[in-house]
């Protein structure tokens, strides 16, 4: 197939004259070194909520006397952050000051020599181009042949635009690449998912069990804060991780499990609890369905059996089960968040849900509280047209239980096939760097090549922007309004984000872009207000406040309106499952032909000389989005490959030596990665932080630094229940040169 949409190398990304010389280094100071100290009261502050990750902490942006952004600090009233942002939020300031930002709308053009480049264009030209293409697709194939892939605030507005246009293909990587299996498992068990922020009552727990959930490195703010409170109050932490994670070092029990075997441990724990009667009998009796089937099914999972699989000693398994029971119901078997690991993830999360049910922690203090959330009403607008087709048509009858769209499913639906009468022809990509986000890059690129139109809305020249037909530069969250943040939690809260400064360069907000496009597409009724301020003011008034008031207070909390935070003793609770009970035996799964009670499945192990590739977060970075942020690059400028000293010795690898990795399919990493020889990782795995190894040279601080785990994740273990993309079934070996690369 012709590479219609070549990845445009950066040199061509914009007109030469406008480029800053590429000599900026991590040491280059980006903001004026103003030495005069100013106190908060002297500085002007404006409210915001953070966009560096999706916890959405509310904060204040402070400016110095010259009107430059000086610092961002948390809003004391915000239940998500309690006045303390995480390092990424504090360093969010670098998003604004990054001189590598996208600066103007760009259009892909082919010059007379056939070379593709980006040409800076006016907004008008960009919108005309997009509108014309979209009208054509609508006329020729129907509006359903378009999709929105989005992660982040602007998604609300582009989503509205796409629905108004007639498509429902709206997917976020935070589902099938992230928490999807967890949501499906908890919906199957308790009739409701966890969503974000999770309703884990960590603050009041007596025992927190973390299964590969590396809180503290996973810097979701409120959870980390509550975990710290729990440590202060002497709560027991049990961590199951093949790596000595930060939180493992703070745990009473660290179970250094063989990766991919967690389900064996979980089922054994269930068995041990049941065998010993270490479960909440009243709770199970009153609220659950299918206990006997569960009991019969897990009988075979003894600690001795699990030892052979997980390498966790039987006494450890029993001792930790006992610890959980002793703390119950104030115990949390944490469901984790990024859970798309091995393809049987929904079943693993079912086991987690079942454990919580047995210990009676759902709906109880120190377990999981009941969420409360304020609904934001939008101004009345015409109903959306009903799409006749969706991405699901490309799935056959698979993944019926997925409650949200699959980003990878959209990819599948974009690649033409005989079973598909019409494939997706246009993508709007907003705030997601799909090349580094979806596994199996080859497939993503194939899908992209099948598009007639790809619009990328981003703030940075990421990998994904190189594939766009049109690049729309969004201003950063510090320079714009966005939709109202309404967060779930122990109580509802709403927050405002407003521009602290004027947008730099020729950048605009998603709202403005969506509205302009809506006008071009004759859909202006869906954007009834002339300005975003008016729209927000209208919405705030429905919530009993106003834009003017919110500009002053930034955040508003609401008292709980409905039930209590926890179930009252003996309270009758109606669960939203088929049986109306907590389903230890899932009737929904049974209906779909899946195991109603989870069963252990064995996963492939690394061949000799290969190591399992596992990855995670560094507290100071968010995926690939912060990799070029000057403030955060200063804290960490590349990822390293964690290697156990025994393995390093076998291979003769020195600490800090740069090496290449090659995966089981012969893919060699594009860049070398620095070896970190550390006892903190098991001998059968290597570990790295996700989000590095950027190949776009325009990212002057991060280009070529470290490697991208996504590039090596070519084998995807798709979850048969909900379509999540299991990404930890890949194995790598070490290379000391990049030779293989040339052959490919």
């Amino acid at each position: 197939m012709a590479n219609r949409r070549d990845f445009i190398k950066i040199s061509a990304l914009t007109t030469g004259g406008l480029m800053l010389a590429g000599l900026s280094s991590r040491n280059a100071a980006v903001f004026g070194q103003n030495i005069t100290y100013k106190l908060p009261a002297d500085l002007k502050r404006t409210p915001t909520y953070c966009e560096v990750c999706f916890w959405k902490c509310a904060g204040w942006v402070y400016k110095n006397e010259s009107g430059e952004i000086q610092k961002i600090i948390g809003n004391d009233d915000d239940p998500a952050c309690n006045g303390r942002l995480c390092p990424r939020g504090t360093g969010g300031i670098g998003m604004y000051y990054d001189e590598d930002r996208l600066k103007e709308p760009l259009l892909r053009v082919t010059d007379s020599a056939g070379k593709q480049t980006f040409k800076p264009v006016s907004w008008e030209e960009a919108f005309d181009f997009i509108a014309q293409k979209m009208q054509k697709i609508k006329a020729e194939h129907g509006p359903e042949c378009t999709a929105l892939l989005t992660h982040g605030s602007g998604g609300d507005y582009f989503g509205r635009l796409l629905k108004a246009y007639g498509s429902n293909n709206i997917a976020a990587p935070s589902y099938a690449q992230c928490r999807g299996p967890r949501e499906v498992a908890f919906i199957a068990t308790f009739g409701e998912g966890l969503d974000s922020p999770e309703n884990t009552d960590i603050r009041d727990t007596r025992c927190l069990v973390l299964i590969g959930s590396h809180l503290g490195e996973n810097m979701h703010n409120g959870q980390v804060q509550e975990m710290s409170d729990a440590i202060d109050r002497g709560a027991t932490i049990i961590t199951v991780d093949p790596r000595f994670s930060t939180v493992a070092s703070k745990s009473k029990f660290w179970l250094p499990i063989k990766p991919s075997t967690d389900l064996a441990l979980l089922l054994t724990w269930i068995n041990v609890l049941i065998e010993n009667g270490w479960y909440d009998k009243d709770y199970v009796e009153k609220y659950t369905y299918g206990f006997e089937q569960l009991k019969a099914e897990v009988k075979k999972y003894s600690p001795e059996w699990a030892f052979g699989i997980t390498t966790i000693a039987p006494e450890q398994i029993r001792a930790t089960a006992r610890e959980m029971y002793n703390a119950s119901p104030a115990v949390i078997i944490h469901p984790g968040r990024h859970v798309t690991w091995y393809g049987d993830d929904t079943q693993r999360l079912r086991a987690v849900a079942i454990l919580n049910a047995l210990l009676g922690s759902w709906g109880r203090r120190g377990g999981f509280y009941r969420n409360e959330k304020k609904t934001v009403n939008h101004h009345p607008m015409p109903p959306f047209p009903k799409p006749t087709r969706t991405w699901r048509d490309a799935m056959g009858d698979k993944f019926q239980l997925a409650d949200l769209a699959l980003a990878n499913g959209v990819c599948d639906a974009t690649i033409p096939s005989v079973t598909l009468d019409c494939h997706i022809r246009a993508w709007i990509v907003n705030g997601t760097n799909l090349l580094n986000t979806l596994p199996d890059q080859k497939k993503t690129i194939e899908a992209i090549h099948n598009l007639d139109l790809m619009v990328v809305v981003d703030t940075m020249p990421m990998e994904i922007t190189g594939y766009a037909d049109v690049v729309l530069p969004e201003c950063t969250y510090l320079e714009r309004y966005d939709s109202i943040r309404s967060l779930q939690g122990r109580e509802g809260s709403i927050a405002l984000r407003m521009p602290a400064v004027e947008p730099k360069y020729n950048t605009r907000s998603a709202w403005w872009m969506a509205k302009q496009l809506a006008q071009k597409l004759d859909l202006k009724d869906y954007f009834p207000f002339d300005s975003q301020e008016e729209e927000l003011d209208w919405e705030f008034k429905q919530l009993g406040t106003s834009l003017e008031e919110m500009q002053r207070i930034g955040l508003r909390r609401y008292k709980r309106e409905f039930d209590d935070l926890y179930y009252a003793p003996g309270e009758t609770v109606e669960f939203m499952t088929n049986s109306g009970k907590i389903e230890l035996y899932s009737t929904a799964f049974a209906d779909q032909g899946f195991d109603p009670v989870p069963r252990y499945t064995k996963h492939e192990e690394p061949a000799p000389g290969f190591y399992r590739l596992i990855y995670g977060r560094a507290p100071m970075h968010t995926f690939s989005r912060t990799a070029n942020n000057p403030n955060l690059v200063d804290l960490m400028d590349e990822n390293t490959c964690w290697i156990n000293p025994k393995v390093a010795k076998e291979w003769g690898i020195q600490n800090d030596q740069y090496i290449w990795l090659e995966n089981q399919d012969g893919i060699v990493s594009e860049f070398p990665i620095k070896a970190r020889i550390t006892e903190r990782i098991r001998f059968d795995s290597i570990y790295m932080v996700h989000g590095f190894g950027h190949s776009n040279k325009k990212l002057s601080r991060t280009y070529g630094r470290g490697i991208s785990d996504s590039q090596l994740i070519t084998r995807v273990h798709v979850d048969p229940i909900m379509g999540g993309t299991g990404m930890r079934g890949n194995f790598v070996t070490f290379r000391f040169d990049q030779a293989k690369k040339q052959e490919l």
Partner: protein
Amino acid sequence: MREEIIVSGRSNPLIDPHLEIWEWQIPSYLFLGGLAAGILFFAGLYTIMKKEKEYKTAVAVAPLITPFLLALGLFFLFLDLKHKLYFWQLYTTIKLESPMSWGAWVLMIITPLSILWGAMHLKTVFPRWDWKYPLIEEILDFFGKYKMQMAWLMTIMSVILGIYTGILLSAFNARPLWNTSILGPLFLTSGLSTGAAAIILMSKSHAERLTFAKIDLMLIAIEIFLIVHMFMGFRASTQVQIEASKLFLGGEFTTIFWVFVMGFGLVLPAILEVFELQKIKVPHQIAPVLVLAGGLVFRFIMVHAGQISRWLY
């Protein structure tokens, strides 16, 4: 395995991965200071001993270069400063606790002294010299009357200057390699030795050269003795000092120290000087040049190795 890393990405230039704040300027400054101190010490000493005639080079010739050595040293110190425009702040305070401060003040006293001394002896060296300005002659005549007092002052100040070049380093408790009281006497001895070497180089009198060869031999012996003691002290001291001394005993400075400082800078010139005393013919310039080079290298590696040595925690 123990792994200790900075996870917040600190890499402050001049500090990480180890201290590198003092490059060539400070060791050169210390060398020049020590050399000048050595020369001025002997000038003062032989004046007090009333042996100006026999030791013309030591008393009259060699001191002529000391104002230049000291000025160059001060210039190097200036080059080392990172906030140069504030240089004058050095002379707004006298802080006795700070070797840097009293070093600056000692230089403030000894530099004019050396200029004066040089001027007074210019005519001894260049008999046809004419100051042209009678005022200068008058001033020199005035000071000429206090030559003895000046000699005393110069001798004392030069000892202080010589010791200062060592104390500047040994005052830093934070750098285990420097943290030894031997460094003051050691640098003084080394300074005197380079001073003696410079005099040998400049002297045209065989007798004077022989005397200074003897003196130098003695100084080298003391120096070797002090160095051996310094290492024995380190070995018997805390873990951090044992670690620090390893830089010279197997570590990265081993070769340069034992070959260039000990071998070519001390032992070999000592042998050559013994030859000279035994009247075995070798070009007389070799030994002093080796001593001077050895003294310079010694200061360079002490300054650099010291910055690498650190407390362990």
